[in-house]
Structure formats: structure tokens, C-alpha cells
């Protein structure tokens, strides 16, 4: 897994790539918690290059969402590969996370 934080039109975007599992999710968690500490909002997450996510990765994002909500922030996901959409749907998390098709839709909404 690789994490890059870029700023697009003034908005922070976390670009993820590779596999998010029990081995790599602690690094994701650290990065996420760092951003929440600084009360970043909205925080966009680009899933385009994510090839795998397991329950530890999902748990990390559920925790991140809870954290960002404590200060009224918003967490937005976009460009999620079909396979991962399927996993979110199965876990009923498609109703919990804000999910957008692409960066522009995520920024605008």
C-alpha cells in the first residue's frame, strides 16, 4: 500500500494504492488520525489504485469516519473499483460512507 496526500483546488485528497490489509492498515490509520488531529475537512479518498481491502482496512475507515464526525467534518470516497464497491455494499457501508464516482463529483457535492 502507498499513501500520497495531494491538494486539489484547496481540498486534501488521500491517494491510496495497492493492498490494504492487516499488515498495511496501521500505516493508513496513522495517516488518517494525523489528518483528523488537524481537523481536516472535507477529506477525500481516491480508491482508484486500491487493489484489495480487508476488514482491517474497512475498520480503519469506520474509525476515521467516527473521528471526522466529532468535529462535523466530511469524509468522501471516490473512484472505487467495482470489487471494493461490492465489499462495501455487502458490509452495508455504502449507506454510511459518502461515495462518489470521481474527484469532481466528490468536490462539488
Amino acid at each position, binding site marked *: 500500500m502507498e499513501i500520497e496526500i495531494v491538494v486539489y483546488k484547496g481540498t486534501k485528497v488521500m491517494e491510496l494504492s495497492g493492498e490494504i490489509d*492487516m499488515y498495511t492498515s496501521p500505516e493508513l490509520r496513522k495517516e488518517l488520525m494525523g489528518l483528523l488531529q488537524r481537523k481536516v475537512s472535507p477529506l477525500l479518498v481516491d480508491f482508484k489504485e486500491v487493489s*484489495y481491502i*480487508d476488514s482491517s482496512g*474497512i*475498520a480503519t475507515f469506520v474509525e476515521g469516519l467516527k473521528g471526522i464526525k466529532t468535529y462535523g467534518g466530511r469524509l468522501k470516497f471516490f473512484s472505487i473499483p467495482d*470489487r471494493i464497491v461490492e465489499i462495501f455494499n*455487502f458490509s*452495508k*457501508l455504502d449507506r454510511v460512507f459518502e461515495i462518489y464516482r470521481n474527484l469532481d463529483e466528490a468536490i462539488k457535492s
Partner: protein
Amino acid sequence: MRDSAIITIPSHPKYLSIVRAVTGKMAELSGMAESAIEDVKLAVDEACSNVIKHAYKGNVYQKIILRFKTSPKGFEVIIEDNGLKVHPESLVGRDLEDIKPGGLGIHFIKKVFDIFAFDEKKKKGNRLRLLRYIKGKDGD
């Protein structure tokens, strides 16, 4: 020896990518559909993550053994550890409506495997048997 493979790995999360690679290849060799292969990789990853977290309490230097077997009956994975005994009553995923971190692993495992059973005869540690029956062409 035929239609089977065994891997032994340390209980360190960095070996999960090896578990997924072998699981995926074995599922492929069994002729499973692509989407089911992905589900099976996730399920076996989750089962091993549970061994690390719960049976070994995060000790990353213990041993996990995975035995794969493909047969006309289905695709079988047997996962063995020498950790703490599972309490069968604890083996419940969270209510999917109750959004909180954790509690999804068992759901992912049971989504794709028809049998999820701990072998009660094993004295020390655990032996989890996962079996997915051969499905029809569009079986999921």
C-alpha cells in the same frame, strides 16, 4: 500427493499477501469463477487475521498452517494454529446494521464458504475447516 498444497507461515501480517496469492492460485486451479476467487482470497485472509489477533493475541512469531484441497466436492482450506482455543460462542460477527470498527471477518468468511467449522477433536490450538461446494456456472 495431488490437488492439494500446504503452506506454513509465521503469524505475522506481512505473510497475508502470500496467503492470498496461494489461495487465489489454488482457487484458480480448482476452476472457480473469478468473482468467487476474490471472495475466497478475502475469506482466507480474514481467517488468518483472526488467528493472529485472537488465537495468538498478536504474537507474530507463531506458526499457521494452511492446507488446500480441491476435489469434485469443492474447495477446502484447513487452517491450523497452536494458539488459544476458540470459544465457539464468541464466533459472531457484528450486526451489520450496527456500524462500528471490526466484526466483519466472519461475515466475509461465511459469505463464500458453505462450511465454517472448528475441529473439536484438536487438543491444543485450533483447526478451522472451510469448504466451498462446487457451484453451477453462475453460482455465487
